[in-house]
């Protein structure tokens, strides 16, 4: 299944999806040296985002978050690609500076289409998201 999306940062990547329906802050929520979600009590606390396709609702948090995105990328622990409902400028600045392929405004609700563990391909240059394989065949 191919879904059209709006380009935030160009590039192509594929991998396993991590899905979070809330707003995400690179500053405070994630450790830039490991790519692990560290905020106490966060729904995804302990999850490692490195090499995943990270699907979330929107960016939030302080402007320093864009620096963390860049550090994640430099440290080799950034998500491979990002899919969100609607990006905002701090998150966008981070992914653009870090070169993480990113799309938003999908033609279908990504939370209905993409489940945790699905193998997803993101062509952010062309603005196409594709669910290649289901992580859980029952979904």
């Amino acid at each position, binding site marked *: 299944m191919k879904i059209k999306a709006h*380009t*935030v*940062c160009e590039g192509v990547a594929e991998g396993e999806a991590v899905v979070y329906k809330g*707003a995400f*802050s690179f*500053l*405070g*929520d994630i450790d830039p040296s490991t790519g692990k979600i*560290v*905020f*106490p*009590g966060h729904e995804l606390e302990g999850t490692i985002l490195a090499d995943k396709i990270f699907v979330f*609702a*929107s*960016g*939030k*948090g*302080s*402007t*320093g*978050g*864009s*620096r963390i995105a*860049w*550090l994640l990328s*430099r440290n080799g622990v950034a998500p491979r690609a990002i899919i969100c*409902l*609607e*990006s*905002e*400028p*701090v*998150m*966008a*600045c*981070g992914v*653009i*500076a870090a070169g993480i392929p990113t799309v938003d405004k999908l033609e279908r609700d990504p939370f209905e289409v993409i489940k945790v563990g699905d193998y997803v391909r993101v062509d952010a240059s062309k603005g196409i998201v594709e669910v290649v394989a289901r992580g859980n065949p029952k979904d």
Partner: protein
Amino acid sequence: MVLTEEEQEMLDGKKGPGVQRAMELLVKLGRAFDAERMVKASYGHAPSYDFIPEDFWNFITEGAKPIMKVTTHPGFQPERWKEWGIAGPNIDEMIAEHRRKHERARQLGWLFTNTCAEYLLGIIPRKGEMVAMHGSCMQIATNSLYGAMVERAGILCGLASCITGRIPLMGLMIPENRHTHVLAMVEDLDVTNWSTAQYSCLGYYIGSQVKGKKNVAISGLPENLPFDFSRALVLPMPASGAVTLCHIIGTTPEALYLEAALGDNKPEQIIKVGRRQMKETWEKLNVYDNDKVEHVAFGCPHCTIDEIGLIAAKLEGKKMKASLLIGASVPVEALARVQGYADVIERAGGHFLSCCASVANPFARKDFSGDNQVKSVAVESARAAYYTAGVCGVNTFFGTRDQCIEAGLTGRWKGGEYED
């Protein structure tokens, strides 16, 4: 995206490699948000070089020259950390890096205001003025409390704007985007005896409820809300959410009445806030497993002279058990010194720094302080609570200013749940 001749020259590398890289970043950002063109900033408020990884700092400033007035957000003061004996083992490397970056910033002609509350220094844009502004706390304060046109921007793009003097024309730089679709209604709350902590908690909750980067209007608060309360209310919103413009009905310049804030919009989302939401948020901001308080931090955002006066009044002739940080700009600290407040606070064991008192609190960051790191911090700012727990990773107590001071004096947290 249409560029002027000068902007195209920047993009083509004719103004040096740093300016070219900065312009590339801004053009990509502008494209992602369908900006038609760039605008010239009237001045810039830049992130501190201390927060920019050195390789990125060198990459984007290479060959750049002064282009406009640029002021700075708080940075590090590693020489003072060393002098106070709170620094970790890699302090000499940090000092060397700080000095290298400082020298380049000096060559760029930056004014080292080093504060997240620059309006307290009298540097305030006029209503409608377009400023390249770094720091989510400066962005929301300048937009909301002064009516200048400031778009939410990340640290690296904020830096790029200060190198090029340009901002993509998008978001809150466009007048019709400054109205709101989200209305927060304060109900069932008696604000008569509120201090800044309650306003901060309220703002934190509202920010967390707004989806994405939407503007919000708040009704139900007294008109002409005092400055320190208005500021405490709006500042946590871009930490718990991505709000960058908050209209306080009856107080802020673009929202003297509700219709002015809404424009032609009808509210799409209504957020009702009462005692239950305040209690839950207050509880969530407290993240600790024992009641020992080793440190108290004020100044996220940087303290006003009135706040420093209130702290000094509580500390007259007393001695803190916990260490105490007062985050304030150098000019406000100087006024506190003239006033006699600084002496009282320092005799009680307090330290003044024009640093970030939450994300980069030198007492609480393990990577700055090493084995000297404090393991628990009490704060009266919701924004500070969120970052102290998340970034510093230490026990975090959130309460009123008086509860924090009491905890610092006794070394124990007695602050309980939310009270009006």
